[in-house]
């Protein structure tokens, strides 16, 4: 009886009480999709890891403008580049404070030592911190920075100089990427002395707009607004909470029920329901991504241009946009999205013409009923929400011109491994932009250097490759634009890929969320965002 009374009393207390945080401060709950692997951005490659680290707690020397691909000053106020494009001198911002928490109290402000620690740890395998806490920095390696940075020097407390081995026109953009987030050298020293180097991945210290409070695995990450942030106007939220929900339908239900104010991109099938909800806003913008078909030009009959052209013009792209993207996609005509600078507007889409395709196949000597494999991804990606359905539509399109496509799929890791090995005939794949530089599309995906990696067509075309290499080695934007435009024309004419779509990005949020900007890099940043009642 007594126990009942206690429970009753507790329930009654619950009924009259409200959540204390709700009434006291400005809170924002973001329904995220997964737990971060850790809190040291350099070690990771996914948006899930970057949203909860680089985007919240850290800054970089240069930063992307909110919601855009343009680069603006970050921890470096300004920079100079020598005429040969090989030396970059960064003038660091003064008065920037590292976070003060119960596990670290900084004794000094941000300076050149922090930049040196951050980059030398990634560059030097013998670095004492890396010895104490071995780690790899895959994104840094992937962008070629480990090979290209020849020297890093501290000129004075607020000036650092990077010397490169070869000109990299995207160097400033690369420094703005999440993996290049700047750590505190003083904190690293403290950890090293205490024999707790691994804590750099569990108890983060940065200079960013939010300060780490607590992480409960698979449940939540809590941050508080940084009251000492160097851009005070950017911190409009007192408590930023990541609520971790792996299931997409549950995230949408939570948003509708008001349990979170903003969530990740919805699935196309959820769009209609969300648009109708009067409590939600759903801004959208064309995605900085591309879903495409890659033809393996090392396999017969794809070595023949006429065959690739025939398959390209037999694809009913509009039907795919309607069925697979459910209208939330933009027809792609080129090897990169239209929002990428240097995009050539004069390039037009291939005409849908099955009859002409048949003729081309006949001319190329491809017999009716020729079998090919068409690989379909087993997972949903931002650039392709349903690869299996897309493959079925393509199978149908190509059957009309006498090509029998057998759909092949593997588990995701195996899919990538085998396709990098060139086992496929044609495959569905795609890309989301990393740094806003044209080379991140035209070089990374179609260049000769990428034939063993992301160049899934295995297409190495000398004239094209010369142009993109030349463009990468010059810093003059006008000259680069011209070279990339020429390259795009070759890409279009040679058809190593059939561009399908750029998915439209929708960002559902409660109406009280103000000033959120959709990132072209599919990251979620909450600085500058406010959450009313």
């Amino acid at each position, binding site marked *: 009886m007594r126990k009942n009374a206690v429970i009753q009393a507790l329930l009654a207390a619950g009924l009259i009480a409200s959540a204390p945080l709700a009434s006291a401060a400005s809170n924002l709950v973001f329904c995220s999709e997964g737990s971060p692997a850790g809190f040291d951005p350099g070690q990771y490659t996914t948006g899930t890891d970057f949203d909860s680290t680089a985007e919240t707690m850290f800054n970089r020397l240069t930063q992307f403008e909110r919601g855009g691909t343009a680069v603006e000053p970050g921890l470096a106020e300004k920079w100079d580049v020598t005429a040969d494009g090989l030396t970059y001198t960064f003038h660091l911002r003064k008065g920037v404070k590292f976070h003060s928490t119960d596990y670290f109290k900084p004794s000094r402000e941000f300076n050149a030592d922090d930049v040196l620690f951050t980059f030398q740890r990634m560059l030097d395998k013998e670095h004492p911190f890396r010895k104490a806490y071995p780690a790899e920095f895959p994104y840094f390696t992937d962008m070629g920075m480990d090979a290209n940075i020849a020297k890093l020097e501290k000129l004075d407390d607020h000036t650092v100089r990077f010397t490169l081995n070869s000109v990299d026109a995207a160097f400033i953009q690369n420094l703005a990427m999440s993996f290049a987030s700047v750590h505190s050298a003083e904190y690293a020293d403290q950890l090293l002395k205490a024999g707790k180097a691994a804590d750099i991945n569990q108890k983060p210290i940065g200079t960013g707009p939010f300060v780490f409070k607590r992480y409960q695995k698979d449940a939540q990450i809590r941050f508080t607004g940084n009251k000492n942030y160097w851009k005070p106007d950017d911190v409009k939220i007192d408590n930023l909470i990541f*609520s971790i929900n792996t299931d997409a339908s549950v995230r949408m239900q*939570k948003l509708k029920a008001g349990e979170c104010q903003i969530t990740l991109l919805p699935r196309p099938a959820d769009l209609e329901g969300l648009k109708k909800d009067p409590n939600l806003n759903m801004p959208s913008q064309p995605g900085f991504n591309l879903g495409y078909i890659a033809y393996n030009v090392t396999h017969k009959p794809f070595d023949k241009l006429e065959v690739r052209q025939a398959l390209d013009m037999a694809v009913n792209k509009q039907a795919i946009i309607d069925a697979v993207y459910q209208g939330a996609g933009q027809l792609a005509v080129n090897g990169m999205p239209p929002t990428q600078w240097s995009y050539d507007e004069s390039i037009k889409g291939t005409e849908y013409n099955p009859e002409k395709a048949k003729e081309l196949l006949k001319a190329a000597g491809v017999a009716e009923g020729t079998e090919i494999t068409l690989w379909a991804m087993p997972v949903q990606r931002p650039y392709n929400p349903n690869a299996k359905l897309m493959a079925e539509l393509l199978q149908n399109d190509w059957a009309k011109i006498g090509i029998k496509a057998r759909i092949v799929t593997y588990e995701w890791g195996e899919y990538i491994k085998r396709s990098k090995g060139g086992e496929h005939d044609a495959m569905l794949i795609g890309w989301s932009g990393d740094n806003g530089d044209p080379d991140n599309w035209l070089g990374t995906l179609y260049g000769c250097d990428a034939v063993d990696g992301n160049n899934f067509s295995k297409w190495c075309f000398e004239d094209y490759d010369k142009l993109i290499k030349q463009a990468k080695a010059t810093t003059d934007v006008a000259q680069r634009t011209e070279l990339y435009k020429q390259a795009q024309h070759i890409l279009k004419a040679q058809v190593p890929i059939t561009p399908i779509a750029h998915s439209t990005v929708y960002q559902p949020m409660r109406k009280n969320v103000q000033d959120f900007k959709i990132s072209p890099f599919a990251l979620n940043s909450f600085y500058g965002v406010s959450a009313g009642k």
Partner: protein
Amino acid sequence: MLSFIARRLGLLIPTFFGVTLLTFALIRLIPGDPVEVMMGERRVDPEMHAEAMHRLGLDKPLPAQYLDYITKLAQGDLGESLRTREGVWEEFLTLFPATLELSLAALLFAGTLGVIAGVIAALKRGSLFDHGVMGVSLAGYSMPIFWWGLLLIMFFSVYLGWTPVSGRIDLLYDIEPKTGFMLIDTLLSEEEGAFKDALMHLILPAIVLGTIPLAVIARMTRSAMLEVLREDYIRTARAKGLSPARVVFVHGLRNALIPVLTVFGLQVGTLLAGAVLTETIFSWPGIGKWLIEAIGARDYPVVQNGILLIACLVILVNFVVDILYGLVNPRIRHQR
């Protein structure tokens, strides 16, 4: 009794080794390695790949890896997660209270409702209620958990707004995890209303997870009760003029519960298996969700040792149930 316990213990050792071998082999049969999975479409630098595989100890031949694993296990070292680099045991300890809390709530729901429904169905055999309970329990047993969970969320959380959609508590409550059991932590915290909020969060997942055990327990209680009610001692009790309630609850139910007890033990396995799905639907941060993510990331130590820990738990519970059963039933105890 001691030899009975010794026999049972003897069986545990091969079971334990079987589990280690099976999980070790199965997770490695899935294509892809942790570094490749992490890189996705990106280029995997061969040198970096080799370094990472070496650091993770995955460049050795499989028998050597298994030997390392077993040696470490014998020293009580469960290794660390390849993905988060935290100790597997520490991660398990952080997440297990959430699963235990949910499982206990589900078992409480299934046990209470199942026994009551089973007894009434047995007493009113052939009635509409009996047919109803059996029909519903069959449906409950066959219900796909994922679908059932989403259906309840849509109706109770979104349409009626009675219960929260997911999670263990409204995140505007800042509850420091002291015991890991949210109901206890909310009581320990000074935040008003937090306990009720945590309780409300527990209702739907407990119902979803408890549905299959509920169906099993209800049917088992009904058939055990029917059998017991036919026994001579029940007739004798009735002939002695005891009240119907005393006959049913003291003489009938007490004996009928013996087989139901075994079912309870077996349901622990069902609950932990069901927790994998229930936790995913309700964003419940427990070991089920942990394992699913570990499989996706090819986090070998987490998958191997997480499954091993769960297997140990199931074995342990069944062992205790066996002992209890042996205690209450001498025929089992003396079987050779």
